[in-house]
């Protein structure tokens, strides 16, 4: 499965660039929106949470850092949501392509995932610049993020493959996803630290692999306490399983899929 992707790396690159560019065709500043968007968002969050609401994030004594914590988690979350949601429709949206031209189907969700990651990456650059400015960047470790990006992409890609295939058979999937993400947003400690969740519910948070993912990113970028090794291992294992599951479902449904699109 990796070899199909390597064989088609130019096609994937073209698809990703087509996806990113098509979003900004006709706009004046173009791809700069991908930087402007997170920048404005980050500034807005800082103003609201730090100056208006004067929120502290968990045990952190400073009120100024709430947006940093939030943003650290929000960037991968948005990549996940965008990647999976858009992947669920990608086979149907590209029906003319799939029906007329022979190419490996898996490149379509992958290109969506990579385009979402591209925006996450630009957002991360904005975040890192702000962190440097605030002198709160975890300089020793933040480069480690690249290692975790791999698992994050594998996870999103795997989930994307699953929903992309299933949505061809059941168009309800795209609808269900909306509800599911709404729910997941709150059972992932993004706008609150895990420690603040009631003891009775904490097992739910621990069961959620995303909890461990964002805690890892907070550790890497902000120097938050290291998440448990078990939690990290759980998330990495989850990513791999989901990735293989995605391919398993694609290979099982590939033949019938094209007839139903």
């Amino acid at each position: 499965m990796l070899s199909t992707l390597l064989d088609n790396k130019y096609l994937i690159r073209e698809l990703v660039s087509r996806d990113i560019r098509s979003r900004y065709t006709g706009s004046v500043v173009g791809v700069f929106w991908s930087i402007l968007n997170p920048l404005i968002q980050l500034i807005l969050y800082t103003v609201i949470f730090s100056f208006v609401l004067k929120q502290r994030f968990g045990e952190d004594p400073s009120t100024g850092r709430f947006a940093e914590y939030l943003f650290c988690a929000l960037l991968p979350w948005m990549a996940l949501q965008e990647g999976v949601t858009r992947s669920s429709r990608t086979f149907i949206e590209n029906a003319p392509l799939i029906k007329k031209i022979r190419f490996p189907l898996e490149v379509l969700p992958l290109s969506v995932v990579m385009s979402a990651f591209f925006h996450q990456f630009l957002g991360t650059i904005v975040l890192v610049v702000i962190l440097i400015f605030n002198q709160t960047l975890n300089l020793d470790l933040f480069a480690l993020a690249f290692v975790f990006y791999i698992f994050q992409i594998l996870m999103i890609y795997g989930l994307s493959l699953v929903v992309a295939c299933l949505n061809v058979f059941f168009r309800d999937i795209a609808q269900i996803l909306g509800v599911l993400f709404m729910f997941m947003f709150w059972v992932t400690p993004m706008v609150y630290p895990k420690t603040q969740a009631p003891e009775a519910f904490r097992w739910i948070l621990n069961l959620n692999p995303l909890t461990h993912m964002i805690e890892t990113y907070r550790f890497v970028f902000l120097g938050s306490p290291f998440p448990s090794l078990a939690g990290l291992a759980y998330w990495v294992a989850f990513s791999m399983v989901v990735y293989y599951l995605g391919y398993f479902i694609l290979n099982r449904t590939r033949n019938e899929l094209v007839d139903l699109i």
Partner: protein
Amino acid sequence: MSTAIVVSHVSKVYKHYWGPRSLLKEILLGVTSHSRQWALKDVSFELEEGEAFGVVGDNGAGKSTLLKILAGTAFPTQGDVKVSGRISALLELGAGFHPEFTGRENIYFNGALQGMSREEIKEREDEIIEFSELSEFVDKPVKTYSSGMFLRLGFAVATGFDPAILIIDEALAVGDQHFQKKCTDRIMQFRRESKTILFCSHNLYQVKTLCDRALWLDRGAVMAIDSSARVVDQYTNELRQERKPTKGESFERPKDSLDCAIERVATLDAAGRPCNDFTTGDCLRLDVWAFFGERFQGTPGIAASIVRNDGLLFYTTTSTKDGVKLLELEPGHFYGSLVFPSLPLLSGLYYFNVVTTDQENLQAYHIVERAVTFTVQSPTDSGSVKLEHHWNNQLPDDRQKAS
């Protein structure tokens, strides 16, 4: 020569689920909740490298499904397909174009879809732009193109990356007359370069001239695989058969004709051997034995008509009108032979209607429809009959004066 395409026992079933709920039911409970439609039934053939292969058949015969399976955009339910070499399919021109992007960007994107690398595309970019005659428009968004420009670019992109196998569905040529010529020239060039071509068309003449061999599909099943001329002829015969309004044979036999009967009829070739398969220009001989009883008064005569299987009457002639007396072999038993020294008929399935008449040709005594059937093959001409003709490449005298 190696084989380019091997299709072995390919069948394709389209499942029609009655709705999303029945699909869920089938997956969860294993209850069959769909109807099946066989688009292809046990299709097998091989294509040599460099061969041009035609596919003919009615609408819904499975042609498009077959092409899709070969192009890799659909998968067979049973059997398998082996393809060696890169395929480019002219199934729908410009299918992969994004309207917001320029022609050039779309060339790159479509090249990538066909599995080309950036360098390979760069190499052919200029040639494709030149062929599509877009010149300055190539850097404008495709959505601003006229339909002709769109098709031109689509054709140029589909054929521009040097495919080993080309699959063509109907669209042999697109655009205005000038560009259509370029399209056919390019296809013929592929032909000369010994590329493998799979051509599916309702234009039987094109199939006959372009392809070496052809396949005739009917409701998903293979009816014939043979030389393209023979397959097209067979298919045409079948088409004509269907078009004929009444198929029933009638042996109209008036009561008083009992002792005026056609006894035997046969078609023979130039050497006098019984023969039912002819080529345009061959000598065809029709032998008729008839019996005329004692009650018959006058000169015995025989009328013969050539009818094509779609019911079209080509020609009728009678022995008495031509002033020929039948040979009386034994008392009451007559023999006559009708000879067409150079058969002008073109490809088709024909039969003779033979009738016993009297000298005035007013009375038809014994009518035998489809007394004998025969086929005609014509490798080159198209139409119904070969008309005598010649071409001049010099001005005739009367024109010379005028100019």
